[in-house]
């Protein structure tokens, strides 16, 4: 039930009883008016009866005066007679005007006739006789007078008896009306009472039903709200990530189970505490306190993520690595009302990752050791066999031959050992290098080799291409790449070496690149199939069989990376334009990283 239907019911509650009472009052009024008419009728009867009686009285008064005069002959006694005689015409007129119907009028007229007959035929002659001194003792005359008088009386009685019978009827009717009014009043009262009662009851029932329904709905809604709130609370509590909510001032409002476990703060202790106290975070390497995400979210009013290497110091002082994000809590108007922090313990993941890296380093070292063993055991085997042969039966020529072979094998061991050492040799500080000079010196050293296999080298290297770096290492990189190119192009192929200075900008992939030098080394060899190309930077991967260590490109990339640069290989094996391009970018002033790891 809504407000308008409730208003309608309220209006009905007022209007219906008023209307019912008005109807009752109208009925009562009608009854009363009917009764009043009856009363008026009765009153009319009374008036007529009284008037008729008055007329009779006047006539009687006349007769009495007449009789007194007849007896005494004293005219004074006639005064009464004349007074009555004077009043009678008006009384008759009045009485005539009050008749209810023609019959009554006739009766009134006949009464008047009887009177006038008495007065004219008896009274007036009698007075005249007496006045004339005549005798009035005549029995017949008096008897005649009496008869006429009786006639008047009879007429009066007749008139009044008729009027009285009308009056009686009216009185009876009045009684009936009063009874019927009482009955009507009772019936109306009961009916109106019942109508109002039932009607109001039905309305109240409607209101009550609606109220009960609203109440039920409210109760169900309240239950639902409670349940959903409970479900949310349980969800939040059982979520595996730590969740802390704060108000705008950065005071802790709630902290779920995981967060309590991770921070070491119970909900009771943490509540209303500054988040910096409950959730103190530091940079892993610098150990400097980090700005709390709540402050950052409040400032930026958007989601922020923690930088990597964040440490949370727990309440007991122990440390855990965490990943974290903070998001603003907004009300429905979009106003910031708080901040929610979500974080998780990544200590195990971090340690696992460290262990993996260490593992990988060990594996690399292990593979390296195996390679060294392999590379050294082969010449060592030959040398030990040669020594055995020299020790046994051998002539001088054979001895020289064995010695030469042994020296050759020892040189191989030395070469391998040097190559391995160069991997780990690090200069103290970078120096300025002119790449033009560096590349020229390498090409000069390799010139005889190129001539031997008929390789033509073209180069476009502008003067003064200066970068900062470690020259010995870069020499190793370029020697490696140019050797690879010459071997690929052999025999009678072409190598093109180009270098250019490039300003800061973006590379083909849209990654930001600082200013530096780009060197490309092209060959027109057969090219490298994609499945091999993808392995070329892995350590110990070689396509040169026993001639290669499989470390050249791996080490080269380590060196270039250390110089903050990049090295890429692209190759085509198609019948047209086959060949391989090595691209090396070296920044002019690198932020030097760590060496090969």
């Amino acid at each position: 039930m809504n407000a308008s239907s409730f208003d309608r019911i309220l209006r009905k509650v007022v209007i219906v009883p008023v209307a019912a009472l008005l109807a009752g009052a109208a009925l009562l009024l009608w009854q009363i008016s009917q009764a009043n008419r009856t009363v008026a009728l009765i009153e009319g009867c009374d008036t007529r009866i009284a008037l008729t009686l008055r007329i009779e009285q006047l006539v009687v008064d006349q007769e009495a005066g007449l009789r007194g005069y007849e007896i005494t002959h004293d005219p004074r006694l006639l005064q009464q007679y004349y007074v009555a005689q004077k009043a009678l015409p008006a009384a008759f007129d009045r009485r005539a005007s009050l008749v209810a119907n023609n019959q009554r009028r006739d009766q009134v007229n006949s009464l008047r006739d009887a009177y006038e007959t008495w007065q004219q035929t008896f009274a007036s002659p009698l007075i005249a006789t007496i006045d004339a001194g005549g005798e009035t003792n005549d029995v017949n005359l008096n008897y005649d007078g009496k008869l006429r008088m009786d006639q008047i009386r009879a007429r009066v009685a007749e008139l009044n008896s008729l009027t009285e019978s009308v009056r009686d009827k009216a009185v009876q009717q009045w009684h009936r009306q009063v009874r019927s009014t009482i009955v009507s009043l009772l019936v109306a009262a009961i009916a109106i009472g019942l109508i109002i009662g039932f009607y109001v009851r039905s309305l109240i029932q409607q209101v009550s039903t609606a109220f009960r329904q609203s109440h039920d709905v409210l109760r169900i809604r309240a239950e639902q709200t409670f349940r959903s709130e409970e479900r949310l609370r349980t969800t939040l509590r059982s979520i595996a990530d730590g969740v802390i909510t704060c108000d705008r001032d950065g005071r802790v409002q709630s902290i779920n189970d995981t967060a309590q476990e991770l921070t070491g703060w119970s909900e009771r202790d943490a509540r209303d505490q500054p988040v910096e106290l409950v959730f103190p975070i530091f940079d892993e390497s610098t150990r400097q306190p980090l700005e709390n995400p709540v402050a950052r979210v409040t400032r930026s009013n958007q989601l922020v993520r923690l930088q990597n290497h964040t440490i949370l110091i727990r309440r007991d002082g122990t440390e855990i690595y965490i990943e974290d994000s903070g998001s603003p809590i907004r009300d429905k108007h979009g106003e910031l009302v708080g901040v929610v922090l979500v974080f998780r313990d990544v200590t195990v993941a971090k340690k696992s990752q460290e262990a993996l890296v260490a593992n990988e380093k060990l594996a690399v070292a292990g593979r390296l050791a195996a390679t060294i063993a392999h590379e050294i055991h082969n010449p060592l085997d030959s040398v030990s066999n040669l020594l055995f042969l020299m020790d046994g039966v051998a002539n001088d020529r054979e001895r020289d031959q064995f010695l030469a072979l042994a020296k050759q094998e020892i040189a191989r061991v030395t070469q391998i050992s040097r190559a391995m050492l160069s991997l780990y040799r690090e200069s103290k500080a970078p120096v300025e290098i002119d790449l033009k000079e560096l590349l020229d010196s390498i090409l000069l050293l390799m010139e005889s080799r190129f001539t031997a296999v008929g390789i033509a080298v073209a180069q476009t290297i502008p003067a003064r291409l200066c970068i900062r770096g470690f020259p010995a290492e870069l020499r190793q990189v370029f020697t490696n790449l140019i050797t690879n190119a010459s071997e690929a192009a052999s025999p009678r192929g072409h190598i093109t070496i180009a270098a250019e200075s490039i300003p800061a900008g973006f590379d083909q992939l849209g990654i930001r690149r600082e200013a530096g030098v780009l060197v490309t080394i092209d060959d027109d060899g057969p090219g490298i199939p994609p499945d091999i190309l993808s392995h070329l930077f892995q350590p110990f991967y070689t396509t040169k069989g026993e001639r290669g260590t499989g470390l050249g490109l791996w080490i080269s990339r380590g060196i270039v990376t250390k110089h903050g640069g990049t090295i890429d290989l692209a190759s085509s094996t198609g019948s047209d334009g086959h060949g391989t391009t090595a691209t090396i970018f070296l920044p002019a002033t690198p932020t030097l990283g760590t060496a090969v790891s």
Partner: protein
Amino acid sequence: MRSPQHLVLCVDDETIGLDVRRMLLERAGYRVLTALDGPTGLDLFAREPVDAVVLDYSMPGMHGGQVAQRMRQVKPSVPILMLSAYTSLPPEVTQIVTLAMTKGEGAPALLQKLGSILPPRASHL
């Protein structure tokens, strides 16, 4: 005491190492066949009446384990001595070959081990 007539097949991709090993075995009285890779070795092994094989493990293309497996399929009775520059070999390889040893253990060890796996030749005793 050993039969000088034993024919030994040496397979190794290291040219110098193979040459030196051939000279050493010839001095010790063996007849020696050499091959620089697995397929060549298998070819010789099938054609010649080889008494024993000295096989290098680490070779490009077909490694010693694969070569030994093929040889076992052709002539299962011929003893194989596996040489390796690595200190440890996979167990499935050591199970196939008669004996395995590490390169660099020295010539006497090689000769002693080769002698131990060769069947005595009655006709030359």
